[in-house]
């Protein structure tokens, strides 16, 4: 297995608050890793550090940043562009792909997430779940080797969560390398190779799903999972 992400002793400080304390994580190609843990434990911040949306205050991240894609909790589609333009924009202006090819590729991706019929709609005209599926297609259009999901379903109405999760499950089947910050425990258990539990800025356990959900080493995890399940 080839290691595609290697984070060593990452620290991040906001003012007086140390949000990440010596966080280390290695991810191999094709692995799906879910990060769970209470709110404010530093899960999202860790992901944002990997994507270089936050500067780290200590440690080392080894990663090919051009191969990273990211899906946000707040969706962050471009409101002034149609669905297909949202997807084809970056390939055209960043990768200098010709428009026709980018649009064709965009349509294939929309088909994959089941939204080809919405390609000319603006984001304001589709549902939250559809928006998040478009956001996934948009990230895929840059042909990333690794996808980072920052609580992809927490901003969605409960009935829309399933459609987004099933798209992510499909990606897992295709062996896309993914790190997913989530509160959807059943989903994390089903889709992940490893579960990482974070608390107060530290990774306190990394284990395969079965162990994490049935017999975690750390009592703190048991308490948390009992509340969540």
């Amino acid at each position: 297995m080839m290691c595609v992400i290697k984070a060593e002793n990452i620290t991040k400080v906001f003012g007086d608050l140390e949000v990440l304390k010596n966080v280390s994580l290695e991810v191999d190609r094709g692995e799906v890793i879910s990060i769970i843990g209470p709110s404010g434990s530093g899960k999202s911040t860790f992901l944002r550090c990997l994507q270089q949306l936050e500067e780290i205050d200590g440690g080392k991240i080894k990663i090919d940043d051009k191969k990273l894609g990211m899906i946000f909790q707040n969706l962050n589609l471009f409101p002034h562009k149609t669905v297909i333009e949202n997807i084809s924009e970056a390939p055209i202006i960043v990768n200098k792909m010709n428009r026709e090819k980018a649009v064709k590729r965009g349509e294939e991706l929309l088909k994959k997430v089941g939204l080809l019929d919405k390609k000319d709609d603006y984001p304001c005209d589709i549902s939250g779940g559809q928006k998040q599926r478009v956001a996934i297609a948009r990230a895929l259009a840059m042909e990333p080797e690794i996808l980072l999901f920052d609580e992809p379903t927490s901003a969605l109405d409960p009935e829309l969560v399933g459609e987004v999760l099933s798209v992510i499950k499909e990606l897992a089947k295709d062996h896309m390398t993914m790190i997913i910050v989530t509160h959807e425990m059943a989903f994390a258990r089903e889709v992940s190779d490893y579960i990482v539990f974070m608390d107060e800025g530290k990774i306190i356990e990394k284990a395969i799903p079965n162990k994490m959900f049935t017999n975690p080493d750390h009592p703190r995890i048991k308490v948390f999972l009992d509340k969540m399940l």
Partner: protein
Amino acid sequence: MSYILNITGFILKGSIVTLKLYAVAIVFSIPLGIVGALGKTSNKKWLKNILEIYIWIIRGTPLLLQLFFVYFGLPVFGIKLGRFQAAAITFIINYGAYFTEIFRAGIESVDKGQYEAAKALGMNYKQTMRRIILPQAIKRVLPPTSNEAITLMKDTALVAAISMGDILRAAKEVLTRDFNVTPFIIAAIIYLLLTSVVVLVFKQLEKKYAIYE
């Protein structure tokens, strides 16, 4: 009737000066405002400070004083400008300051998540601004920009004070000669028509940008 047509023709000739000045001022002050706004939203402190002083001076002093300074004052320092040049430069610098503030507010109103999404897709600063942030900012600043564009049309009348033959000056000449208020009424109607065109243009723009959100 032929009298009214006659003086209307004369005053309309003045509108050529008004429109020329208006066109030059708009065409240069809006880009100046965009550049200024990008400067003010950048992380270069010295640039922000310079722009701050520029806006402070321009917004805090009368436009007519600025016009007099450029036309009558600069020759003292050996810089002699024609009337039209002096007026155009004054209006561009003055309106550039207002547009800078309007566009800055527009840029800052765009959600931080838009920058992050663009960055995550590999876009650099220029691509992000041009393709993602500015188009959204423009939609939001259309109403205040429309206000400024209307005010600029009326402010061009200030050039009558440095003897430029614009609409107002032409009307005043007729009034002094014939001693009746008809030319002022005609001038008012011409200004109304011109500002109405500006209003219409901005209404169309707002409609165009209303397809999303």
